C-alpha cells in the first residue's frame, strides 16, 4: 500500500491515515520471535457522548507532528519497559459510528509490560498528539477540546505512567 512520507514513519509502526485501520496489520508490526504477549487497544466511535446522539466524527490531524508525537510515545514506553515495541495508527477524516479511530499495539516478552505500555500509550496520545475530533451530533457539531498539548509536561507524562499501573 503506497503512502506519502507524511502519513507514516519508515517502518510503518506510526501512521496517520484516512483509510480504515487494520488491527492484524498493526499487531504484525510489533510481533517478534521472542515476544510472548501483544496487547491491542482499539478506540471505536461511540453513538453517544455527553448526552448527545452522535452521527459521526471528523478527525483532523497535524500529520508530521502527530507522527513525531507517536514516536516520542514509543520512545517513552521503551525507556520504561525495555523490551516493549509499540505501533500506533490513527484515523483522520470522517469516521462512522462503530469504526476504529485509533488502534495501537504493544508487544513484549511478558504480558505485564505489554498491558502497561498500551495503557500508557493511549493516555499519552490523548495528552499530546496534535489530533482533533469534530463531533457531528443530532442538532449540531462541536470541536472536542481536551488537553493542551505539551510533550515536555513531566507531570502529565507521570500521570500517564501512573494510569498504566506500572
Amino acid at each position, binding site marked *: 500500500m503506497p503512502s506519502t512520507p507524511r502519513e507514516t514513519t519508515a517502518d510503518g509502526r506510526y501512521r496517520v491515515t484516512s483509510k480504515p485501520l487494520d488491527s492484524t496489520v498493526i499487531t504484525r508490526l510489533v510481533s517478534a520471535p521472542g515476544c510472548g504477549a501483544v496487547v491491542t487497544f482499539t*478506540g471505536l466511535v461511540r453513538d453517544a457522548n455527553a448526552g448527545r446522539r452522535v452521527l459521526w466524527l471528523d*478527525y*483532523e*490531524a*497535524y500529520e*508530521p*507532528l*502527530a507522527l*513525531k508525537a507517536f514516536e516520542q510515545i514509543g520512545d517513552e514506553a521503551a525507556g520504561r519497559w525495555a523490551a516493549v515495541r509499540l505501533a500506533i495508527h*490513527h484515523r483522520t477524516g470522517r469516521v462512522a459510528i462503530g469504526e476504529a*479511530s*485509533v488502534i495501537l499495539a504493544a508487544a513484549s516478552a511478558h504480558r505485564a509490560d505489554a498491558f502497561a505500555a498500551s495503557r500508557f500509550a*493511549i493516555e499519552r*496520545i*490523548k*495528552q*499530546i*498528539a*496534535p*489530533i*482533533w*475530533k*469534530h463531533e457531528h451530533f443530532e442538532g449540531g457539531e462541536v*470541536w*472536542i*477540546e*481536551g*488537553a*493542551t*498539548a*505539551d*510533550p*515536555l509536561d513531566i507531570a502529565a507524562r507521570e500521570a500517564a505512567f501512573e494510569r498504566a499501573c506500572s
Partner: protein
Amino acid sequence: MLVKVRLFARLREIAGASELARSVPAGATARVLWDQLAVDFPALEDYGNVVSCAVNDDYARLTATLNEGDEVAFLPPVSGG
C-alpha cells in the same frame, strides 16, 4: 520578516483559513505572532491560555523566537484517540 501560519480545528474555523502569511518584527516570538492574529480574529482570544504551538513541524514554546520563513502552527487543546 515573513512567516507562515498554520491553524487547526476550531482555530482554523475562526480564521477561516488553514494557512496564512504574516509579517512580524525581527526577533518576534510565537506569542507575538499569536497576539497579532488575535487582533485580526478576536475569537482567538479565548484560546490564549490553552493554545500550544509548533515551529517547522516540531513542538515549540510560545516564547520561542521566530526566524524568517518559519512555519508556525497553533494548536487548540487536542482530542485524539
